[in-house]
């Protein structure tokens, strides 16, 4: 979108492209999870709630806290990259990565607890949804972790500075989206 009066710099223009591209990608991700959530809402309403089974609220609450904290650290990482603070950026990326690991480890234990009780996706429709939605959410967390790792190495190599830090910002958007899904997922499956 060029204004002949004042041209954006090359970096600013590319940043606009990348941010817009990421928002579009996130829109597609919203639609992806929409199918799962819509199906869950529908089947649960149709059953008048009779499909519901209890889950470990405390583990879920801890995971919620972990993810919200990781969102904070990611935002702080983006801030650091904009200030050109390479060390701080690398630290925040690493902390976000570690928090993501913690999330997945907790989920691993949750899944393990279910399996040891003989509860599998096929056991009943509620657990089918549980494994389906948290499973795909987990895959997205994993993808985010891979991205964070790559960014950490790139930051180490000095790729980012005050002028160019788009990948951090777009990765940040993606990471917040992952947090967003969990913000709805947790009450929908665990709390109500």
């Amino acid at each position, binding site marked *: 979108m060029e204004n002949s009066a004042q041209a954006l710099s090359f970096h600013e223009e590319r940043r606009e*492209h990348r941010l817009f*591209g990421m928002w579009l990608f996130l829109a597609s*991700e919203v639609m992806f999870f*929409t199918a799962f959530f819509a*199906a869950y809402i*529908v089947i649960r309403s149709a059953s008048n709630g009779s499909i519901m089974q209890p889950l470990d609220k405390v583990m879920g609450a801890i995971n919620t806290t972990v993810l919200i904290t990781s969102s904070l650290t990611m935002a702080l990482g983006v801030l650091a990259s904009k200030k050109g603070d390479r060390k701080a950026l690398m630290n925040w990326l690493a902390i976000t990565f570690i928090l993501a690991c913690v999330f997945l480890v907790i989920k691993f234990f949750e899944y393990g607890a279910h399996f040891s009780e003989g509860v599998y996706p*096929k056991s009943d429709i509620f657990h*089918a949804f549980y494994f*389906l939605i948290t499973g795909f959410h987990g895959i997205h967390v994993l993808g985010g972790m891979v991205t964070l790792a790559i960014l950490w190495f790139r930051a180490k190599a000095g790729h980012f500075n005050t002028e160019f830090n788009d990948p951090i910002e777009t990765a940040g958007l993606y990471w917040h989206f992952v947090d967003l899904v969990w913000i709805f997922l947790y009450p929908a499956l665990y709390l109500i």
Partner: protein
Amino acid sequence: MSDTPNTIEVLPHSAAESAHESHEEHLHPAPEGFFRNYVWSYDHKVVSKQYLWTSLIFMILGGGLAMLLRWQIAYPFKTVPVLGALLKGTYFFAADGSVSAEGYLQLGTMHGLVMVFFVIIPLIVAAFGNFLIPLHIGARDVAFPFLNALSYWLYLPAGLLMFAAFFVDKGAAAAGWTGYPPLSDLAGASSAGLGMNLVLLALFLAGFSSILGGLNFIVTIVKMRAPGMTYSRLPLTTWGQLITAVFQVIATPMLAAGGSVLLFDRLFDTSFFVPAGSVIGSTPVPNTGGGYPLLWQHIFWFYAHPAVYILILPSMGFASDLLATFSRKPIFGYKAMVLSMTSIMGLGFMVWGHHMFMSGMNPIMGMAFTVSTIFIALPSGVKVFNWLGTLWGANMKLDSPMLYALTFVSMFIIGGLSGVFMASTPVDIYIHDTYYIIAHFHYVVFGATLFGSFGGLTYWFPKMFGRMMNEKLAKLHWLLTFIFFNAAFFPMHFLGEAGHMRRLATSTEYQFLNSMAPWNEFISKMAFLLGTAQLIFMFNFIYSVFYGKKAAQNPWEANTLEWTAETPVPHYNFKKIPTVYRGPYEYSSEEAGDKDWISQAAPPAGGVLAAKHKVSAH
């Protein structure tokens, strides 16, 4: 920069434009080496050709599947010539070399899936879109060249996976392209086992490719237009691609999600779509039940209805461009054309239930979807009238691209009208799942979209390959395809009205269908001739790439920006990013003077400064 072989002389126009250009050079230098030139390319033109060749090959394969289908319909239980004798007892052939019943369902399913996902969408969206969009808007490439290359390399393996499914035990998917459960999600129900899973995986990959491509095109069109290229000066081809890209980004994920849930049912024995108490034969299924088959239909059609707009909108854009160019007249009602496309975008998400009138869903929903579907016929009608208005009083040049474009309009009218019948629930109760439906969608996808694509290929061939296609052969191809296409598909309307069901491997089982057998044979013969006629186009296309008459830069004397680029188009597209001064359809206007056309980028007679105020009104 000036040391490299592809020296580009940057001629600055204004500070803004030189800043714009210098960062375009920044984008990526000219590629070197076979790998970067032809395999993993950051040049949208190369990626478009990758898609083009691949989708044309898949078209031949997908068409072949249809030929086998038509053989079985016309000559049930007769040995298929050549192939049947060679492959009897294997794949989809029965022991006597005829098409087996399970094989028939596989063929039908795969014909649909291959044509929709691996031929039409890659051809009209990825191939044409990739080639044309940057050229139409005056950019040097798409917004994300890396994602572009990745999109192709997701599509190709996906296509190969689809065909690999034929070769695994029990063959490829066989539950219809719509994949309705329980047939599609119970491991023992349909004939397919691993094959169905491979097909679902292939669709997942192709869908991901589609989403990335759509995203790329949206950012490109919105953010990378040349100075002066306002939205109201975009060629309708570009508008068509923009709306299509929105559908791709928003709708395709639903398919991915639905497919994932189906895979869960198949792999982990969950019961999202499996009703309670399901049995196969007399064996209860391992799934515990409690699911809703209807849920799949909602999820699937929420995607698949927007998909049909993906299948038509780019081709509508081509038709508009072609009709204007060969009528030497502006498109009638440009604004209305744009508004109708955007309203199709809005309404297109609200009509999916018209595929489900017979599903047992709530009849009140049936009424709601009838209303919304009738509404969506309106913008299509507007477009048809505007095309006719464009032709009205025109001094038409009946070159082959124009013949294809005219066919687009007329076949679209027929296909669209049959669609109006289906929109009404009471009528659809009768014609659902009959040949009437098959006639409808072949009229819109083959009659409209594919003819529009043939037109696009003959029209943009000079820009893509620097040569002209042979005009006589193109006209011959057009004539034969037109005749055989109508001869094959029009009678299907009557078969459908008479109650002939679709996806029927053995119509001889039903006495009331016996009277229609001669029609089936006739249709099949026409279909075989139709398939053979395509060889003419194939020959013309391949021959002309190497030996066609060399093309001028603007052989059609058209206004849009791609014709201002050299032929063949260099890596950087334009020596200097053009500035746009007018809309794309200024044919036979006063400004053109003696000629009946004036390029979008030609400075106005009064001088550039005089038009400056027009340029900056973005």
